[in-house]
């Protein structure tokens, strides 16, 4: 197996040197800083539809790593605001259509950088506009949320809506009770949640549903023991976590599973040591970045979710992460006030 991709890096056997348990902080910072300079790679252009998400992932990773200044604040804000549409929604990059997924990333970045004054300067009434864009995507009958005007519904969008609106103190703009009711209808017999009523349980969707209920203050509706059991079964002998029964482990599930366990006070039901060892095996200690599995190509998506997972289980030297928002706890505390 071609898992080993360089001396001292991922994929080698157990019994490693203690350095194997060290997070390569400087390399990860450099890796994230380098992301916008890779314009000579086709991949850079093919992933333009993820640019604003990517910025949120990179920025959050840097904050958790304790290097919040590593991306210039003004440049980030200028880029974010250049993605905004007249209707209050944001696209993935300038010229891309507005969609819930990018609007949420924009709000998360604006919150992290405390940039709402800059927003109001450029777009007077901008915050209220964003709130209206999101509120208009709620189906007032079912409580569910669409991703954009084309109407696809998914608990990912509902979660995003509650996440962004709560950060802006605009939750009143939507019918939270109906949204909560919809999430409750997505629960399955195994204790997990799906993308909609009747959809199979999936760790990513569990995160969005548990996150939405937590933000709405209705985690009392969760069957904690049953869900906790299902989530804890996601840990495999190699320490990694999977998304569904009988699937492979993947670093991004470190976040979705572990944060959900944290929100229902069951994080101790998995082995933090083994999870930590797995995530660290997935990092590229030489060039920075974290991959889905040991020896695979790194990307900023798995980098932030790996680091956030490590923060959750208390890896030394990292800023504390908020499990419901995937943002630094210091930031959500400031934005939400005393949370």
């Amino acid at each position, binding site marked *: 197996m071609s898992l080993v991709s360089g001396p001292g890096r991922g994929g080698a056997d157990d019994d490693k040197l203690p350095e194997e348990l060290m997070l390569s902080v400087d390399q990860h910072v450099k890796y994230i800083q380098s992301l916008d300079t890779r314009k000579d790679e086709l991949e850079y252009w093919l992933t333009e539809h993820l640019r604003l998400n990517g910025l949120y992932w990179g920025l959050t990773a840097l904050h958790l790593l304790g290097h919040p200044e590593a991306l210039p604040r003004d440049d980030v804000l200028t880029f974010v605001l250049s993605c905004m549409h007249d209707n209050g929604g944001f696209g993935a990059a300038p010229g891309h259509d507005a969609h819930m997924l990018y609007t949420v990333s924009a709000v998360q970045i604006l919150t992290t950088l405390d940039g709402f004054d800059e927003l109001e300067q450029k777009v007077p009434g901008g915050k209220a506009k964003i709130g209206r864009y999101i509120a208009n995507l709620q189906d007032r009958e079912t409580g569910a949320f669409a991703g954009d005007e084309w109407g696809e519904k998914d608990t990912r969008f509902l979660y995003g809506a509650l996440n962004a609106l709560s950060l802006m103190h605009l939750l009143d703009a939507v019918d939270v009770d109906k949204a909560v009711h919809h999430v409750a209808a997505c629960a399955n017999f195994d204790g997990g949640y799906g993308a909609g009523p009747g959809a199979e349980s999936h760790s990513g969707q569990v995160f969005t549903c548990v996150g939405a209920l937590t933000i709405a203050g209705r985690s009392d509706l969760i069957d904690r023991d049953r869900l906790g059991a299902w989530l804890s079964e996601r840990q495999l002998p190699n320490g990694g976590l999977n998304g569904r029964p009988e699937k492979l482990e993947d670093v991004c599930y470190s976040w979705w599973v572990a944060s959900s366990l944290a929100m229902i006070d069951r994080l101790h039901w*998995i082995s933090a040591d083994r999870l930590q060892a797995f995530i660290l095996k997935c990092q590229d200690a030489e060039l920075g970045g974290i991959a889905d599995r040991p020896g*695979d190509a790194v990307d900023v998506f798995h980098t932030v979710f790996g680091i956030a997972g490590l923060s959750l289980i208390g890896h030394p030297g990292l800023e504390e992460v908020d499990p419901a928002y995937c943002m630094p706890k210091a930031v959500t505390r400031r934005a939400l006030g005393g949370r």
Partner: protein
Amino acid sequence: MASHGIPRVSSSEVPTEQSRLKEAQKIVQYRHLADLVNHKYGEGQLDIDSLSLTSKLLTKNPEYYSIWNYRRRILQHLMPNSTPTTNSYSYENELKFLLPLLIQFPKCYWIWNHRVWVLEQADTSLPLEAALAFWREELGLVSKMLARDSRNFHGWRYRRLVVKHLEALCSNHDVAEGSSLRSTHQIVEDEFDYTTKMIETNLSNFSAWHNRSLLIPRLLDNRQAGRDERKVMFESELALIHKALYTDPYDQSLWYYHNYLLQHFDPAQQQSATTTIYSPSNEESIHWLRHELDLLRELCDDEDGCRWIYQALVECSTIYTEVDRDTQHTLTRDLQLWLQKLQDLDPLRFKRWKDAEAGLLVRTKA
């Protein structure tokens, strides 16, 4: 930017001048095409040439969601509510364009979404028979997709959506003809048979077990089944899962479904008609639970190292003590032993079993 399963390239592999040039050329071509399409989108051009350009771009990059939006605007313009024969571009054309993309990118949300959108357009603008034919074809397509990857999340979700649409169309259809609702019911029966087929092919297909748990209560409702028929169904599901567990007691998909059946005995579990096969009486629950415990102990003798059996023993006897309080002190000692066994067998979840043991002690004292 979010890659899965792509091997890391070693830092010592410096790209050659030739490969660098080739990459640069590809970037120029791609950006030229993207700029051209975006320019046309900005100008609001909704002609067939623009449509072909979006085809070209989306084939290179199906994640480019804005271009799917543009494409829908073009299609809305090209395919208004007129008969399809008068148009040079049809729903068939669009579905055919999407097929190879779906096969190549089965996990791309936007392609699945777009396909649903196209079919919904056909719904509103074509005669019922024609629309029905489209949706029926989809069932065949998604079966092929699931034959390639039997756990594809999008595939199963799409399947349930297609079935929902077919049911809605059929019931309208039947009402119009004044006949019974048989065909709607037939769809649910067929879907149930499909899950049986998928499970027979591969026991470990949790997606199929999950769908089965949703279909059975609906199927019984459709049949207007009484208690006897429901009981027969419940017993046959128990028999099916027992057979499967004897085949592979290490398969967690099976244990989840087993757990779903066990929940039927649990008085603490809120029973709702949409998730329940049968509501057993207290005596029936006790009878079945006793049988279940015997069977699990037997399984345990053969497979002493299988933690799933101990988990099921814990679950089963916990419910048993709820149903029949008299069993509490006889089962408590066993429960404690099984929970300790789980702490040994399952070190990853050690603290979960510790919590369960502590909970047991609290319950027995109360």
